[in-house]
């Protein structure tokens, strides 16, 4: 049974029936899914959700499918960790990590959106899936295409390092290296999406795909005991995630699944690519595109499609935004690993680093619940920390050599902020 009413323009509010459409035909504003909440309210309760398997589809009424899902049955319901060690270091009372670095199948939050995109693409009758990606999205589309038995095309800039292609190529999609810069890949994919009958997950079925992000927020609320935390720090690339966290929590509140919703939302970006942070800090409704230069490649989107909407939800929630330098990102990755045993990619370093800054600035109070979003796995971006770690001890194969070297090991490294 479908609970989707159709598509609605986020700019002018015009409504469209369900279909393969991603911008408003009148104002070219982006479209999002409108649901029949009255109908959902009748069937969805905490008990119904709790009785279902622990994956992202336990919230299926709030996802944009007309039929039962076909993909992503092992995706979602990732750990929600009370991070007491890190809390102690940061001097805060109640800190949590929502850990999508162990999401299935490809260790990033993108598995959620791609699972929705695949199920929807099949409803629309597509048999070829495509995306333009240099990282997590490409990995997820490739793996889930392998599971689903669909043909996948992955478009990447030709100069992308081989190491980054392996995590997609292993699933045997068609990888297309485009001899052009980043802008040219964007332009080409947009043209291909309008000509070929392929499901480009982040272009022509974007409104559906993006809804998958809400499950990240649903899980935070459920795992937090059917409550909304006071503060959530989210990474931002295109800006979609924070808007979907807001939408997800709002839906839970409106449906009576959580009793209160007074969450302040914060956005984190790398300093070399922070158009949304700049807009929030300067209070500009217009996002100025930038040329990205940051080690947080998974967030390096210079012209964020949902930038304005991210600005809007953060401002309305009473939140703020911070950018992290490359050095701060690396330090934060190490800090999270050493305190909580979580090895995150650069985007997680960005959110942890931003959280540290926001706490220091007293924008986030120390005695309220804080959730830091960790959306990807550090094994994918090892190169950024490789030279920043303690070197292994090198010894001769005898006890005295070990004991000699062992004396040089400091007892503990202490972090303070």
């Amino acid at each position, binding site marked *: 049974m479908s609970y989707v009413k159709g598509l609605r323009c986020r*700019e002018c509010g015009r409504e469209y029936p369900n279909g393969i459409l*991603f*911008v408003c035909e*009148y*104002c*070219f*504003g982006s479209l999002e899914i409108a649901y029949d909440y009255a109908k959902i309210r009748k069937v969805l309760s905490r008990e119904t959700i709790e009785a279902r398997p622990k994956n992202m589809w336990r919230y299926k009424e709030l996802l944009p499918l007309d039929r039962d899902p076909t993909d992503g049955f092992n995706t979602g319901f990732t750990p929600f960790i009370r991070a007491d060690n890190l809390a102690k270091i940061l001097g805060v009372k109640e800190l949590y990590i929502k850990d999508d670095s162990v999401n299935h199948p490809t260790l990033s939050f*993108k598995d959620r959106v791609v699972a929705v995109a695949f199920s929807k693409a099949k409803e629309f009758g597509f048999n070829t899936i495509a*995306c*333009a*990606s*240099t*990282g*997590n*999205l490409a990995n997820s589309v490739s793996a889930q295409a392998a599971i689903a038995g669909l043909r996948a095309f992955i*478009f*990447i*800039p030709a100069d992308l390092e081989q190491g980054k292609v392996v995590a997609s190529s292993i699933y045997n999609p068609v990888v297309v290296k485009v001899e052009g810069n*980043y802008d040219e*890949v*964007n*332009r080409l*994919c*947009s043209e291909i999406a309008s000509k070929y009958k392929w499901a480009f997950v*982040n*272009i022509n079925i*974007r409104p559906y795909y993006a809804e998958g992000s809400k499950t990240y927020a649903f899980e935070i609320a459920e795992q937090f005991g059917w409550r909304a935390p006071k503060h959530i720090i989210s990474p931002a*690339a*295109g800006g979609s995630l924070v808007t979907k966290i807001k939408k997800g929590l709002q839906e839970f509140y409106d449906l009576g699944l959580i009793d209160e919703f007074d969450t302040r939302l914060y956005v984190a970006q790398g300093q070399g690519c922070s158009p949304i942070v700049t807009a929030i800090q300067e209070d*500009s*409704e*217009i*996002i*100025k*595109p930038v040329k990205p230069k940051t080690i947080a490649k*998974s967030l390096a*989107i*210079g*012209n*964020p*499609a*949902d*930038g304005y909407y991210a600005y809007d939800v953060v401002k309305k929630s009473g939140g703020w935004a911070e950018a992290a330098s490359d050095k701060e990102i690396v330090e934060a990755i190490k800090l999270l690993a050493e305190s909580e045993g979580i090895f995150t990619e650069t985007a997680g370093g960005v959110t942890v680093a931003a959280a540290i800054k926001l706490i220091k600035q007293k924008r986030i109070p120390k005695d309220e619940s804080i959730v830091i979003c960790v959306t990807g796995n550090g094994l994918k971006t090892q190169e950024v920390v490789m030279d920043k770690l303690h070197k292994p001890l090198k010894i001769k194969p005898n006890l005295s050599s070990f004991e000699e070297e062992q004396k040089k090991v400091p007892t503990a490294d202490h972090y303070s902020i």
Partner: protein
Amino acid sequence: MAKKVVKLTFTGEAIKKPLTFRMAKKFDVMPNIRRAKVTDQIGEIVLELDGKEENLEKGIKFLVKSGVIVEPIVGDIVE
């Protein structure tokens, strides 16, 4: 004839000049404004451009050369 949908961002000096008008006149391109936002610091306009393919290319190049940031309407796609 071809059509292109673009988002133009004007900053600094570019905001004061009638660049869209000049582009339309010089390259025989018909701009159709669909959405716009302007502050005293920055301006953003979503346009549908109608004209000969080569003129559209030339017109966009002219805008870029004049300091306007020209982006496809869907934003960056490579994620």
